[in-house]
C-alpha cells in the first residue's frame, strides 16, 4: 500500500515586531470607535513589512522552514513549487518572478513551478490540492514546496478590513511529501460562487458577500465532514482565517460545534495575512494539536465567491480514507 501524503513541516515569517492597533490607529487617524469595534471582534496586533518585497518575505520563510527540516531532504528532491497569494502587490517586474528569485536563492530545480492567486485567500488550498495530486503521481519527485506571500501598502483604510480584521504582511512555507510526516492530508474541497468574481468593490457584491459568506462557509465545512465521516468531529480543531471572529462564532454555532474548537487567538496575535493564515495557524497551533492526536480543519474565505477547506489528520490513529471529487 502506498504511504499517505502529508505535511513534513511548516514555517512563516512576519516582519518586525507585532504592532498594536490601538497605538498605530491613533497615529494614523483611525477613529477610536473603529479601533474599539476591531478589538471587540478579537483583533489587536498586526505586522507591517513595508520595507520588504514579496520575494524577500518568501525567501525568509523558506530559509526558516529549511532549518527545521530533516537534514536528509535535498533541494533536488523538490519536484514542484507552488506559490499562492491574494494580493497583487510587490510582484517583481517581468521576466523575473517570485519563484524565479526563490529558485535562484535556494538552487531548487523543480519539474515545474507556478504562482496562483485568483482564488484570493482560498488560493493556498488550491496550491495544496495541486501538491497532493503531483505527489500521487508514481513518477513524481518526493517533495512539494508550497509558499505563500501577502501584504498591503498604504494608509489605514487599506490596512483595516471594515471592523472585522487587520491586514498583516508576511510569507509562509510548508513542505509536503510521503516521509517524515507530521500529518496526513485529506484532499481539500472548494465552493465556487463566481457571480461574485468582481469582488466587494462592486456595490451589489458587497451586500451579497456579507449575506452569504458565513452560510456558504458553514455549508462547505458540513459537506466536507459528511464526505469524510471518519474524521473525529469531537476532537476537531478549526483554524479560521485570522479575521472576522464574530462571523466564525456564527459558523461554529451553525455547525453545532462549541466555540472551544475554534482557534481564534491568532486573530488577536497575528492579524490577517491573507493566504499565509493557513500555514501560520498550522505552525502556531495545528501541528501541536496533530501531535496530540487531534484532527485540524483549516479554512480559506475569499471575497470573490470562492472558499476552500482542508483537514490534516494525525499520523497515528484511525486512518481516514481520502476521497476526492472529480
Amino acid at each position: 500500500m502506498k504511504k499517505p501524503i502529508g505535511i513534513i513541516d511548516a514555517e512563516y515569517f512576519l516582519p518586525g515586531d507585532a504592532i498594536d492597533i490601538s497605538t498605530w490607529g491613533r497615529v494614523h487617524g483611525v477613529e477610536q470607535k473603529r479601533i474599539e469595534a476591531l478589538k471587540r471582534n478579537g483583533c489587536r496586533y498586526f505586522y507591517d513589512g513595508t520595507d520588504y518585497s514579496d520575494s524577500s518575505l518568501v525567501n525568509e520563510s523558506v530559509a526558516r522552514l529549511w532549518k527545521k527540516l530533516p537534514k536528509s531532504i535535498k533541494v533536488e528532491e523538490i519536484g514542484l513549487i507552488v506559490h499562492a497569494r491574494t494580493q497583487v502587490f510587490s510582484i517583481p517586474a517581468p521576466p523575473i518572478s517570485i519563484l524565479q528569485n526563490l529558485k535562484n536563492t535556494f538552487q531548487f530545480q523543480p519539474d515545474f513551478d507556478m504562482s496562483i492567486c485568483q482564488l484570493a485567500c482560498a488560493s493556498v488550498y488550491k496550491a495544496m490540492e495541486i501538491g497532493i495530486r503531483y505527489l500521487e503521481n508514481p513518477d513524481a519527485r518526493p517533495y512539494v514546496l508550497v509558499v505563500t506571500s501577502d501584504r498591503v501598502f498604504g494608509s489605514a483604510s487599506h490596512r483595516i478590513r471594515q471592523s472585522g480584521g487587520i491586514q498583516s504582511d508576511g510569507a509562509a512555507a510548508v513542505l509536503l511529501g510521503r516521509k517524515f510526516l507530521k500529518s496526513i492530508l485529506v484532499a481539500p474541497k472548494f465552493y465556487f460562487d463566481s457571480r461574485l468574481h468582481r469582488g466587494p468593490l462592486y456595490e451589489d457584491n458587497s451586500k451579497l458577500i456579507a449575506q452569504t459568506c458565513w452560510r456558504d462557509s458553514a455549508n462547505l465545512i458540513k459537506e466536507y465532514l459528511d464526505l469524510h465521516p471518519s474524521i473525529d468531529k469531537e476532537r476537531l480543531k478549526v483554524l479560521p482565517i485570522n479575521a472576522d471572529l464574530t462571523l466564525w462564532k456564527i459558523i461554529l454555532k451553525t455547525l453545532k460545534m462549541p466555540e472551544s474548537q475554534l482557534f481564534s487567538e491568532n486573530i488577536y496575535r497575528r492579524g490577517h495575512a491573507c493566504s499565509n493564515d493557513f500555514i501560520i495557524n498550522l505552525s502556531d497551533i495545528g501541528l501541536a494539536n496533530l501531535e496530540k492526536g487531534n484532527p485540524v480543519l483549516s479554512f480559506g474565505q475569499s471575497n470573490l465567491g470562492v472558499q476552500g477547506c482542508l483537514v490534516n489528520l494525525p499520523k497515528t490513529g484511525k486512518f481516514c480514507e481520502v476521497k476526492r471529487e472529480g
Partner: protein
Amino acid sequence: MKAEINLAIVHNESRSPSKIGNNPATIHYPYLFEEAGKFSRPSDIECNPKTMNSSKNYDIGDELFKDLEKASQNLPIDKDIRHIHSQYTVIDRFLSSRCLGIHHTLKLESDTLCVDQCGTVGLGRSLQLVNSCYKNDKAVLLTCADQWLEPYQRNISDTVGYCDSYGYLLLNRSELDQKRYPVIRRVHRFSHSDMSEPEGYHKLFNDFGCWLSNLLKYECQDVQVIIGDPYQSDYLGKIYDKFDKESEVIPPRKGHEGTVATLASIQEFISLKSDKRKSLIWSLSLSGEGYAFVIEKPKEI
C-alpha cells in the same frame, strides 16, 4: 523533461489588437501600485508613479469573456470542463476578475485555476499541470490573455515588442477527436537556471538553440515545420543557426503576443496550406523557461 500529452485541439483561437473592437473599459495599474512600485517597477526604468496612469480603450479580459461566451454556443464545452488560465505577469489587471469571470460566463461547475508570472510560457505550464495533476480529465479549456501598460511594454521593447492578445484552446482526450483534429503529441521542457550573465539574453537563446537542435536531431526527426515565438532576429539567429536539419522555419510574426504567442504559433501551423503534417512549436520565456510542443495534423486536414 518530456511528457506524452496526446490531446486533440478541438478549437484554437488567438486574437491580437487589430481584431479587437473598442469598448469604454479603462485599464489601470493594480490598486496601490504606487506604494508597491519600488519592488515591482523595472529597475532600469526611470518613471514617476504619479504619471503612470496608462490607459487603453479596451480590456483584453473582457474581450476574452465575450468571445468565449459567443463561441461556447457552438463549441462542445462541458460544464464540468477544467479551466486553466495563464498570463505573463500580474501587471495588467486584477487577475481575479478575469479567471473567475470566465468561470461565471461559461457557467462552469468545476474548479477554475489561474497561473500567473509565467513569462511567455503559460501554455507549457498549463499542459504540465494537466499532465501531472489532471490526467484523468477528458477535456480542458486553456485560456491566455495579456494586456500591456507602460513602462513595461517599453522596458522590454529593446528585446521584442509585446502586443495585447488573448486566446483559448479547447483540448480533448478522446481517441475519436485525436483522429479528427490536430493533436498535441508531446511537450518537452527546457530550463536555464543561470540568468545572471552580463551578456543579457544571448546565452539564454544560445543554450535554448542547442537544446532545440538536439531535440530535432535525436527525438523529433520527423518534424517538418518549425514555428516559434516572434523575438527579434539577432536572438532568433542564436536558435536557428544551430539547426543542421532541413526543416521549414516559418518567419516570425510582427509582435510578440505574450502567453498567447504559443496559441498563435499553433494557429499558424493549423492554417498553413501545406501537406506538412508534423510541426515543432517552440516557446521561450526570458525568465529562462522554454517549451517545445510536437503537434500533428490528421491526414484529412
